[in-house]
């Protein structure tokens, strides 16, 4: 199976009483390959979170179809297998932690799935270890920092051993330290466990290491390519209210002044190197 998620001609609109339904997106086509690290970028209200909620059948498309590992999300019988294959992490860590002991929370999904006790123990410890929270397993979640809480939430999903993890703005409520911790973990997920990672965010920096960046605006996909090629389109990103990474910003500003620099030098080192070779041609 090549595709983790396939969106075919899907539309979604919120029904309203006494008003026209609000269309979030229409006739959307998208497929995400297994093992990729995909970032969906977009401004508030562009439909990215709504789309993400379709990936594990929390929402169902009002038109078109969505296949998750070949299973139609409209099919009720496949609901548990779908949710087992696609784990979801949300923005507010406080509102997704169920238990008042860290390890009990990580075990929640496994308990729901009726997995034997010994295996739960093994998987919980492995998941907590993967996010570096093993030593906190007996702690109360409300005593942890935001970043730590979010790592517990990720462990809770990881313990299910899903093939794909969708993270809906997991860093939006965190301080810079917590954000760094969480992004570090997310990057490792794909490398260590071979899971497909779909990260939804509006922080450009978090998209730099992705295999693929999808930019959404007004319910449409306006760019879909590697980070380098997407971020080179500075005008397009600006027109939809997104800021490009600082490095691209600098190179773009220099180009406006008449330099001829490559816009795809995303890391600080690459950017410095690009400027250096332009200033002092060998």
């Amino acid at each position, binding site marked *: 199976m090549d595709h983790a998620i396939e969106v075919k001609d899907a539309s979604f609109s919120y029904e309203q009483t006494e008003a026209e339904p609000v269309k979030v997106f229409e006739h959307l086509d998208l497929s995400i390959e297994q093992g990729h690290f995909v970032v969906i970028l977009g401004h508030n209200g562009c439909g990215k979170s709504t789309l993400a*909620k379709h990936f*594990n059948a*929390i929402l169902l498309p009002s038109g078109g179809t969505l296949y998750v590992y070949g299973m139609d999300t409209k099919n009720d019988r496949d609901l*548990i297998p779908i*949710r*087992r294959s696609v*784990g*979801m992490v*949300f923005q*507010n860590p*406080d*509102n*997704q*932690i*169920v*238990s*008042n*002991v860290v*390890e*009990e929370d990580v*075990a*929640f*999904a*496994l*308990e*729901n*799935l*009726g*997995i*034997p*006790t010994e295996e*739960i*123990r093994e998987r*919980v410890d492995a998941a907590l270890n993967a996010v570096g929270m093993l030593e906190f397993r007996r702690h*109360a*979640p*409300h005593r942890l920092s935001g970043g730590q809480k979010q790592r517990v939430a990720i462990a*809770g*999903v990881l313990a*299910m051993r899903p093939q794909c993890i969708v993270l809906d703005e997991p860093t939006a409520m965190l301080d810079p330290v917590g954000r760094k911790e969480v992004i570090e973990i997310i990057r490792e997920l794909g490398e260590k466990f071979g899971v497909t990672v779909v990260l939804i965010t509006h922080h450009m920096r978090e998209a730099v290491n992705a295999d693929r960046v999808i930019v959404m605006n007004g319910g449409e996909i306006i760019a879909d390519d590697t980070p380098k090629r997407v971020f080179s389109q500075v005008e397009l990103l600006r027109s939809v209210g997104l800021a490009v990474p600082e490095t691209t910003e600098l190179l773009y500003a220099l180009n406006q002044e008449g330099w001829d620099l490559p816009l795809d030098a995303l890391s600080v080192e690459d950017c410095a190197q690009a400027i250096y070779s332009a200033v002092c041609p060998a």
Partner: protein
Amino acid sequence: MLKDITIGQYFPGDTPIHRMDPRTKILNVIFYIIALFSCGGIVGYVLVLAYLIAAVRISRIKLKTILKGVKPLIIIIIFTALLNMFYTPGNELVHFWRLTITDAGLKNAVLMVARIIMLITGTFLLTYTTSPITLTDGLELLLNPLKKLHAPVHELAMMMSIALRFIPTLIEETDKIMSAQKARGADFETGNLIQKAKALIPILVPLFVSAFRRADELATAMECRCYTGGEGRTRLNPLHWQRLDTIGLICGIVLLTGVIVLRQFGL
């Protein structure tokens, strides 16, 4: 201020009482309460008190902690003592103005105070030595037979544990809302009772709105983690009945029978 509120505060430890199955502890507390209320005389009370003291000693909970638990109820205790003292008929001891203290009244008052303090201490010992999550587990298992009558036992236990989980979160939130309202000039300290109660509205409304939003998000997150109710769930830490529990349960039953037998002899 709000940080001081503790419901079901738990003091971790590794004593036999801590290790005991929550079911044993809950049943023991029930036996203890029944025994306390069936006491026929001083000897009965002494027996129950001895049982309590033994349990407290084994649990290594400090006397200070226990007295702290009794403190908030001091007014009720004093009130009960006074009522019993003045309104029990018997041989007059002291008489002034329209109040009379009788010998029976004095005895009643002392016993009633002892009874209340022992009742509170005994039940607090349960929450002090049992983590909330094991407590709900124990309750769920004890009430399991009611599932046959279609009582939502699992759902109730789940609601209880989620409520416990969200107490600190909501307290923090209340603090934040209070600070925000104070920053905009809200006044919670002055005024009479009605004004103070009215001042709470701008705290309660946002708190409720946010609680509903949290509940909605939590429900989605639980669904994402394949929650489908109590059917077919397994546990990370299943409860095990050990020899310790059998011993504990026997102790409770012995106490209760002892008190009932003593009552027959009017002791």
